[in-house]
């Protein structure tokens, strides 16, 4: 199947205008010795055959597993309006809004998105989104290096280990250094984090809730960072922000996070979006696109991409980042999700996630031999210690149709018996009770 509409007559007429005898002649600038040595692909197929093939593949994607797993990506409810509105072709088949007069739809949506992110994070300036949560943490690290003109970041090891890998990769080429501070059990070791900040530190990077699910107060950490003219970067989980104090309230200078849980499907790895927000005085150091408000010659309000002098198409190698595409459509989904739930719905959703996880904590904690490892506050995840190797237990529970959690041994040597369990609003009491029963069974029978 092809989508090239020109008929043989069209092609003949066009070649006549060009003054070429054949389409092949147009490829004459390519010397024969550079021609492809191979192009070994199967012939095309019909839509019907394609859908058959794809459905076969989709049959093997773990759809019948009950997930108690997160790792930064969460199985949340998505209101039907999100899929419907984001599927409008005027949004999804448009390009970057470089011609603002015929892209007010995208531009206003991005401005509204930025407004929602500022309100969630308690900060004053947001960009129009980044690739994903992990690259957002890395961009925040780079941003702090630019702002402070320093080359060291203090990185809390309870930040998502997948994200930490991305951060260290990004820093590596720039000869910047990440000082990784081990957690105290399942909580950030605030004392050691504070002791690691000095006058060389660009930023201290923490996560809330952290990879183990713990929620902590970072106000003192922020103060200590600021005493050394370093920044506090908080990677946050947006659903938690319906309930938990915002990074802005905690004294953060930059808030970042994975936006997936705001209306984007888990989709085996993406697309998702990363968000980033900061204090207004750092706006020129933000990476990526920013939509801004302005007026036309008649005084009508409109929106444009602004502060473009930071960006790669103008500043080239001196740009704040190489980011060209953002994740506009994913950000739009995030915005529609926030607006659909609204002030009350968003708070209710946070509470529901909190209550469900607290319930799961109580029933799993009651399973013989299982210990709860976060003594302090947690949001929708928590860590348990099992009497057996957690990877083994998870594998056995997978065979029973439940993804019980993320075993920690592969990320935190020494924590082979620890398991992070995630509970979103989608998990029912029945599913939670079943998880506890299955766990009991696998551990003791």
């Amino acid at each position, binding site marked *: 199947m092809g989508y*090239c509409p020109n008929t043989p007559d069209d092609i003949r007429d066009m070649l006549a205008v060009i003054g070429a005898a054949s389409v092949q002649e147009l490829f004459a600038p390519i010397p024969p010795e550079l021609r492809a040595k191979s192009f070994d692909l199967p012939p095309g197929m019909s839509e019907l055959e394609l859908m058959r093939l794809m459905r076969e593949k989709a049959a093997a994607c*773990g759809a019948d597993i009950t997930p108690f797993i997160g790792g930064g990506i969460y199985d949340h409810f998505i209101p039907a309006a999100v899929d419907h509105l984001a599927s409008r072709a005027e949004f999804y088949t*448009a390009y970057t809004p470089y011609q603002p007069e015929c892209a007010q739809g995208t531009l206003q949506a991005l401005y509204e998105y930025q407004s929602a992110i500022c309100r969630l994070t308690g900060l004053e300036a947001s960009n129009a989104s980044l690739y994903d949560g992990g690259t957002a943490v890395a961009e925040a690290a780079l941003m702090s290096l630019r702002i402070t003109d320093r080359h060291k970041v203090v990185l809390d090891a309870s930040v998502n280990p997948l994200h930490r890998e991305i951060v260290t990769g990004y820093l590596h080429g720039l000869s910047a250094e990440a000082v990784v501070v081990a957690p105290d059990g399942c909580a950030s070791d605030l004392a050691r984090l504070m002791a690691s900040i000095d006058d060389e530190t660009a930023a201290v990077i923490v996560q809330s809730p952290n990879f183990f699910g713990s929620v902590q107060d970072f106000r003192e950490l922020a103060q200590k960072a600021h005493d050394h003219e370093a920044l506090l970067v908080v990677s946050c989980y947006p659903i938690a922000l319906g309930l938990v104090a915002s990074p802005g309230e905690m004294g953060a200078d930059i808030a970042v996070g994975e936006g997936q849980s705001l209306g984007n499907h888990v989709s085996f790895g993406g697309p998702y979006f990363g968000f980033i927000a900061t204090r207004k005085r750092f706006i020129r150091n933000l990476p990526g696109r920013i939509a801004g408000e302005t007026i036309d010659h008649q005084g009508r309000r409109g929106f444009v991409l602004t502060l473009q002098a930071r960006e790669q198409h103008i500043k080239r190698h001196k740009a704040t980042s190489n980011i060209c595409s953002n994740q506009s459509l994913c950000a739009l989904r995030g915005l529609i999700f926030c607006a659909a739930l609204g002030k009350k719905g968003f708070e209710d959703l946070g509470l529901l996630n909190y209550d469900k996880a607290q319930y799961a904590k109580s029933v799993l904690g009651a399973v013989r031999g299982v210990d709860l490892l976060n003594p302090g506050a947690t949001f929708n995840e928590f860590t348990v210690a099992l009497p057996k190797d957690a990877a083994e237990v998870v594998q056995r529970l997978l065979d029973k149709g439940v993804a019980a959690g993320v075993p920690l041994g592969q990320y935190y040597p020494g924590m082979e018996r620890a398991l992070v369990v995630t509970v979103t609003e989608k998990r029912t009491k029945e599913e939670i009770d079943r998880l506890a029963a299955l766990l009991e069974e696998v551990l003791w029978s």
Partner: protein
Amino acid sequence: MELIFEKSVSGRTGVRVPLSDVPTAAPLPDELTRKEPVRLPEVGELDLVRHYTNLSRRNFSVDTNFYPLGSCTMKYNTKVTENVGGLFASCHPMLALLPGGDKLVQGPLAVIHELERQLAEITGMEEVTTQPLAGAHGEMTGIMVIAAYHKARGDEKRKYVIVPDSSHGTNPASAAMAGYEIVTVPTAPYGDMDLDLFRQAMNDEVAAVMLTCPNTLGLFNPHIAEICAIAHEGGALTYYDGANLNAILGKVRPGDVGFDVIHVNLHKTFGTPHGGGGPGSGPIGVRGDLVRFLPTPRVVRRDDGSYAVEDHPEGIGRVSDFFGNFAIMMRAYAYITLLGREGLIEVSEQAVLNANYMMARLKEEYDLPFDQTCMHECVFSASRQVQSGVHAIDVAKYLIDRGFHPPTVYFPLNVKEAIMIEPTETESKQTMDAFIEVMLEAARLARENPERLHQAPVTTPVGRLDETRAARMQQVCCE
């Protein structure tokens, strides 16, 4: 139009959150609790649907308007691939990283592996990784691979990356992100990177040369193999920016020519939608001895035909959380499978035919700085129109009034008053003719009534917007 926040009415609710089926828990400690609810809009579902439906109507898009943006490849987004894109929506990526989890996700792992094989064959590379999340992210990943290669050889003095002045801005920015300094080589009068100046710039401190071919002027550089050879003689590696790959499918494979690393913009070449500025997807391919530096994890095919996820111990680490923008990759995989070998070759042939037709019909009225057979796009200059006070931007805005999305203007930077047109293979002669008539009309108006062009656009919800004011006010969110 009002903002959704301005439509908010205190106490109004939209989507209802389910009731809890578990006991209410003891609240979080006070110091950890948010002081007041997030000030999100309070609107009903119908308000919400009308608001975003009406906003969408303020956009030009491929499905509503011809969108001949050069360098961006705004072709038709086939609908069946959209249907495919959502098939794995509920598949959690963490499943693949759990012990024993890979057997549950054989479907998506197969798609990743097969797409990597398809792209390797199309580009002439040994192996591909789908991890990078956009073209520029692929560039950075590719340069990180190149850095790892030099480092593994103990060749650590290399600190420069060469780019031509016509390159995409992402090339130098990505190389800088990977820690390199940039050397820019100017374009020669024939439209390609000046070979002599390139020779002079090459030395044993150069890590890589980044090129697009066809380049951003739409020209195929016949010296491309020579450039690769010179780079390799000097110990540097060659990077192919695959942004313009749709011009040469089945005709040229960068791997055969001598390129070591390539990224592919799935949203350009393989027709996944641009989404108003993303998500994109930027897999990279590498030649044989660079495979070990690809990022972790890797999807591998076992001897029994099943798929597994493996760490890649010598690789550059992780550049995204999981396997890349999977639902975008799905669409590209479906597109390649649907079109097949002959369909992809037709893509290039028709894209090149359409661009040359556009070029032939417009060159009487618009200056053509590089008058040669072009590939998938052509670059004009509005310098003739400037004599009557009309700039490229005025022509662009007039096109909006006539229902066409403007071409790319003021890029590439080495052409004054650039107007860069890429019709793509999915547009018909009739659509192009209608566009050409308006372009010719704009040229006539430039001579006879330039004011009309200066006033444009007049049919859009807002007229030309004050960008200086936006930058000065820095109003980026509502109070």
